[in-house]
């Protein structure tokens, strides 16, 4: 348990470094959109979900409604529903305790804690999330107060950080032929839906690609 947590912290550090840059750009963009420093920092400290924060912010900045902004965030987080379902059997305790443990799920931690057999190492999950949470909040603080020195985040290529971060997670996951096919199919489903569905939905729908895992060892089941 303790070893898993410490190992998780170590594994989490590179993701935490990149998360710092991501949340820094969130801080800059949030200030530009009209958030106060306290509001931008509170968003990172309590929402703690990068894609949802950026999605809600984009709707807010474009003058959208409250419902549209929250819906965009919720749909971006739709994948956490699938991740939570996957994680559930590996969490002990009553419903409240399990629900609290479920809050520690972020993409990198969930992927790294995945044992590959349908079970999860929850202490590794907690450990991997810990440094990512710290730098997520710190990055926003720096972005909020230092953003003026930076100017336009896109000019220095900050928008390339997000896809590269997730590409690293994918490359760590596709170790066998089935997972490579699943990743390819998931990408195709998402791209095919982009023109037709609101942002976030294509990612959630891509979860269907995991059904390619069904036929394996069917004779045994």
């Amino acid at each position: 348990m303790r070893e898993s947590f410490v190992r998780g912290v170590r594994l989490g550090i590179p993701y935490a470094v990149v998360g710092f840059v991501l949340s820094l750009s969130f801080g800059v963009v949030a200030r530009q959109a009209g958030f106060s420093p306290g509001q931008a920092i509170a968003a990172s400290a309590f929402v703690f979900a990068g894609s949802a924060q950026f999605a809600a912010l984009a709707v807010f900045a474009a003058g959208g409604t409250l419902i549209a902004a929250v819906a965009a965030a919720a749909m971006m987080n739709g994948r956490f529903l699938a991740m939570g379902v996957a994680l559930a059997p590996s969490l002990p305790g009553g419903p409240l305790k399990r629900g609290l443990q479920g809050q520690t799920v972020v993409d990198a931690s969930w992927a790294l804690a995945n044992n590959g057999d349908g079970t999860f190492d929850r202490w590794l999950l907690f450990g991997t999330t810990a440094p990512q949470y710290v730098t997520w909040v710190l990055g926003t603080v720096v972005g909020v107060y230092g953003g003026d020195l930076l100017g336009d985040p896109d000019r220095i290529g900050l928008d390339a950080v997000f896809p590269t971060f997730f590409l690293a997670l994918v490359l760590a996951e596709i170790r066998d032929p089935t997972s490579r096919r699943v990743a390819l199919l998931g990408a195709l489903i998402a791209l095919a839906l982009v023109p037709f569905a609101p942002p976030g939905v294509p990612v959630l729908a891509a979860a269907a690609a995991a059904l390619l895992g069904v036929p394996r060892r069917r004779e045994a089941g």
Partner: protein
Amino acid sequence: MNVWVLIAACVAATVTIKAAGPVLLGGRELPAVMLRVIAYLAPALLSALVVTAAFADGRELHVGAETVGMIAGGFLLWRGRPLVLAVLVAMVVTAGLRAIL
């Protein structure tokens, strides 16, 4: 729109979504077939996030400087280079292309 209301609503939505699976499904054994599907959720969801971040702008498909930057970073990752270096290169390539174009 009140920003504090927006943040509170986003917190409520995120906490509910993250809690749903563990609260409703925790502490029970899932059938083997479900465990196999669960094991493959990660590549499915993560690769979808990559392509939507790199090739989608709202509801439009596009290729931008950041797409090229990500590919440059991805090449380094594929060659086994550290994540932080790959992200740095992705940023430099993206920023460089924007400066030229």
